[in-house]
């Protein structure tokens, strides 16, 4: 057994396929992340979201396929969701939903990692932006690789077992409206990625887990979770 060897091989052969900024969606008007609506009628929110709730994953979070996320001893588990990352091939600004997908040059997978239970009132920097908190890859596939985006299924696997999955289905029109909304006030630049669709929130993963995002036509993105002490040994 050479436990480090497989990780070494996959890390040394892998790369992060995204060069730009990664934008994600935490909540949407019709997707409250599994929380009861009443939560959002109380302080500090006072009313339900009226627009997609967006966040940025900075570059220190990008992790190549096969990489390891190292957690400090203060953290024993994380929340994970598998996401479809849409990669923009050209600057996209003020598009309508009918042509919103025209600027998308390809797709890849991402695993959005967060510390659990952080709430939604303030930007989740400490909770979502630790080093390695966005495994992304394995590579970008062109839109033609997905014959039918409606029927694309994304799965999150923990230690080889499916922990969550979601079919894009009617989500395609929602993705188009999302791009319309985001591009109404900012440019999605060539090279940027939008985590446009994801598996349901709430899946907890613990130290020692292997996590994968899987989608037919795109591939499999893997990472593992270790404590920092293990990483240093």
């Amino acid at each position, binding site marked *: 057994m050479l436990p480090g060897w497989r990780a070494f091989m996959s890390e040394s052969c892998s790369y992060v396929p995204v060069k730009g*900024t990664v934008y994600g969606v935490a909540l949407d008007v019709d997707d409250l992340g599994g929380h009861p609506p009443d939560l959002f009628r109380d302080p500090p929110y006072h009313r339900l979201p009226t627009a997609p709730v967006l966040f940025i994953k*900075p570059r220190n979070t990008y992790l190549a396929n096969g990489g390891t996320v190292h957690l400090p001893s203060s953290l024993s588990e994380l929340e994970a969701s598998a996401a479809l990352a849409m990669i923009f091939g050209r600057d996209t600004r003020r598009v309508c939903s009918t042509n919103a997908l025209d600027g998308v040059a390809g797709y890849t997978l991402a695993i959005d990692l967060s510390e659990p239970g952080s709430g939604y009132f303030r930007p989740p920097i400490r909770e979502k932006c630790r080093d390695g908190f966005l495994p992304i890859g394995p590579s970008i596939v062109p839109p033609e690789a997905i014959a039918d985006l409606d029927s694309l299924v994304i799965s999150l696997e923990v230690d080889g077992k499916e922990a969550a999955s979601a079919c894009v289905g009617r989500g395609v029109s929602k993705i188009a409206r999302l791009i319309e909304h985001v591009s109404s006030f900012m440019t999605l630049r060539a090279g940027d990625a939008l985590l446009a669709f994801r598996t349901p929130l709430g899946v907890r993963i613990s130290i020692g887990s292997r996590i994968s995002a899987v989608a037919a036509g795109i591939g499999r993105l893997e990472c593992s979770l270790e404590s920092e002490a293990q990483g240093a040994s």
Partner: protein
Amino acid sequence: MKRARVVYRGSVQTAVAAETERTLRLADGQRIGFDDVEWLPSIEARTIFALGLNYADHAGELNFKAPTKPLVFLKGPNALVGHNGESPCPAGVRQMHAECELAVVIGRQGRRIRQSQAYDHVAGYTIANDYAIREYLENYYRPNLRVKNRDSCTPLGPWVVDASDIPDPMALGLRTFVNGEKMQDGHAKDMIFTIPALIEYLSDFMTLYPGDLILTGTPQGIAYVRAGDEVVTEIDQIGRLVNRVILEPNETAANSGAQDATLHR
């Protein structure tokens, strides 16, 4: 030294500025005037951090208690625009305001940086005007991207002053002028979380890299602006950053991003 990024005769150049003579020296030694160039954002930023409510006086002005840990949010590079640039204000907006901020450029990679070592990781300082549009605030990830990550609504420049030229960045005065009238007059010493404290806080959970940029928050003085205004944000020992507010064009892109080519140089 004051280091600027400019476009001169169609090419992107790095230049060293002599403020008193209003001249720039290009890398090949050529000297040109300030008015001969177009100014780019003073760095090609990697991760852009910004601080909310980091001055007690400003937090009070907005009816917020001073935070007990830094209120950090992020921006994309789309938000930046250079000195003498234009920032679009959407039609109908009445609560766009200017925010003069001392911006710290990270020069050396680091994780778990102690406050006592923090300045060793700073390459220099520049000026940011972190415009906000308060109409778009919501109580989700506040301040949200629609308020703070709009194209060209974070002027940055005119140049980066080397850290070695500013022995005490916590002793700098910050001012904002709208059409010549002074609207903000604050002092970096009033920051709740100092520059070393912010570097220690961020690097405790993430690696800071060269090119990362930290906008350290704004003092009291909400300066509302509207299309047509000239807004100058000024910081001692760094300089004056000039920006014009314009009315945001309202067309929908037909099918391409071509119209944006001028917006986010």
